[in-house]
């Protein structure tokens, strides 16, 4: 029982992080039909920026929470700016081109950012300062749950709910959904589609940067190739939920976290990823457009 509850919490924590990063994939995909393979690297860039600020300020006597908030705000700002720049340089010129050209441009951007991080921060593992947050541990039904885990789970839920409200219950959110369906017709409504795309490239990377910072705060380490690992998992989460679908990305992220935990815990740790992937493929065979994805019936 304790083990099971523990695995659920393990899964939810990383699942929340995957979901936050997956939202960036799914939003960009929704509006541009582009798999932004550089997204994971942007998120980890957020972690590195946060890390630098925290390391610089650690021991300055300021309260940890305030520093952490500052680090979050600055990291989010920089990453969102990088996201917009990326869109402008690497994707905007390819809007009307074959979609695979943009995919390869995104892969190039991923290599560029990853190696850029290596050049700036070096190839070593970087460690986040400790003691910024309480190290409280609660024991629930035989499972140990830390303050950071609870923070990540709660913050993910709040952020996702906020995003959901923004996209589904505000005027600009409706405009984003309209642009995702049909850009030209959205223009005929007076929607500035470029502004929608820029918004998506601000919101997605910003949420991703929070995800990246959570990775840093939770594991207290960051290294330059991490973006690829988290990016891939988050992308898979987005696909699992049905890419382009925002609640789908949330569901996909959480499920992927849980799959991973249960596969490692109950089946075989040596085949952990294989089991996760097999499960993913199995789900796609039953639901070829993911769990919440639209069934695209082709108009004949």
């Amino acid at each position, binding site marked *: 029982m304790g*083990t099971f509850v523990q695995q659920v919490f393990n899964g939810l924590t990383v699942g929340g992080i995957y979901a936050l990063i997956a939202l960036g994939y799914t939003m960009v995909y929704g509006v541009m039909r582009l798999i932004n393979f550089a997204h994971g690297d942007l998120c980890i860039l957020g972690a590195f920026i946060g890390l630098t600020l925290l390391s610089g300020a650690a021991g300055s006597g300021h309260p940890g929470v305030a520093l952490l908030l500052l680090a979050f705000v600055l990291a989010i700002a920089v990453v969102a700016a990088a996201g917009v720049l990326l869109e402008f340089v690497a994707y905007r010129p390819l809007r009307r081109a074959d979609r695979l050209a943009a995919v390869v441009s995104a892969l190039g951007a991923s290599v560029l950012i990853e*190696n850029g991080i290596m050049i700036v921060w*070096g190839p070593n593992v970087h*460690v986040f300062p*400790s003691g910024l947050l309480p190290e409280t541990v609660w024991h629930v039904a035989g499972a140990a749950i830390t303050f950071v885990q609870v923070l990540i789970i709660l913050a993910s839920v709040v952020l996702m709910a906020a995003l959901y409200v923004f996209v589904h219950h505000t005027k600009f959110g409706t405009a984003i959904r309209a642009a995702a369906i049909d850009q030209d017709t959205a223009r005929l409504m007076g929607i500035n589609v470029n502004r929608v795309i820029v918004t998506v490239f601000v919101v997605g990377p910003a949420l991703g940067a929070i995800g990246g910072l959570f990775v840093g705060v939770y594991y207290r380490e960051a*290294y330059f190739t991490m973006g690829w690992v988290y990016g891939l998992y988050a992308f898979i989460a987005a696909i699992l939920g049905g890419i382009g679908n925002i609640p789908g990305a949330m569901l996909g992220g959480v499920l992927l976290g849980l799959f991973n935990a249960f596969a490692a*815990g109950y089946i075989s*740790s040596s085949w*952990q990823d294989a089991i996760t992937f097999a499960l993913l493929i199995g789900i796609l065979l039953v639901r070829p457009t993911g769990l919440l994805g639209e069934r695209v019936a082709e108009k004949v």
Partner: protein
Amino acid sequence: MSRKFLLGAAAAAAFVATGGVAMAAPPILIGVQAPITGTYADEGQGIQKAVQLLADEQNAKGGLLGRKIEVKACDDEGTASQAAICARQLVDAHVVAVIGSYTSGAALAAEPIYARANVLQSSDGTSNQLLERGYQTWFGNAPPNSAEAVFTANYLVNVRHFKRIAVLTDHSSFATGLADEVEKDVKAVHGNVVDKAFINAGSQNFTPVLTQIKSLNPDVLYFSGYYSDGGLIRAQMQQLGMKAVFVGGDANQNVSFGKIAGSAAAGSVILNVPAPQDLPYPAAKQFVAAYKAKYGALPPSVYTLTNADGMRAIMQAIAETKSTDPKKLEGYLHHLKSFQGLTGTFAWNARGERTGSPFVAFEVDAQGNYSILYPKPAH
């Protein structure tokens, strides 16, 4: 051997014959084959920097045999295909010896190429397959898994008397090899392995595996992988309230281990040859200080130092034999009784395996400092 090489050799011969002695002697070329980009970039860059540092120091003292030492680096990205290309490039550049690569896989792909061209190779690779082909040019500079495993099994079962031993590894060639040997040797001394589990290196999320291990109530968790994961495993063990002692293999020995594990680091045990900063050898302390002075950071891991030992041994062989003839150098190294390395005193057996390294168990304290736990220091 390529035509170009033959042409080069002929040209060199002609050069000597026409009395090129009066001119500046050509430099002695030492190759570095390492993963300078990619997942292992920190280790690869560490090796490159260490070798360069040693070469610079030696050159400041006038070089070797009156010739400067020149380092040629090649990025093998940690992959077999690039490693094979690197090996051919370094051979074609007429290097005397090559330091690297960091990963056993890349070292393996390059090994036959160096062997055929008679170029010495000193790598930290510990895969048994590196020894199986019996190449005379191979000189492993890290202690072999087998020796570490014997020490580990003895330490876990006979010294600490652990009753329930859990073994954890990643999927890398090195770590699985070590874990397999430790498991075998623990069983050989009648120890009880309750679980052998795997993590995905770099995936950071180890709590699912650890939760599962916790349910088996081990009194020790032995991890054969790398420090970046080891530190996290230690931290996540504490977070999960696991009481088991953490014992890490040699790849856990890194300054970052304690930083990553944070407050959980205290009480962790790491098994390795004595680390430079804990060694009484002045050479080791001096090297680490010089490295830090030049590059602004400590070496990324102990393998930087084992590879540095490879470089030092080859320089010593050149100096002692007054030659760069590979046959002479090989003979010298194979017959060396004891080499004063930065990572301990050792030698090479006929297969090029590093022998005679004393292993120790370190304990990490809350500040991330290491102290030797076993065997108790003599003084």
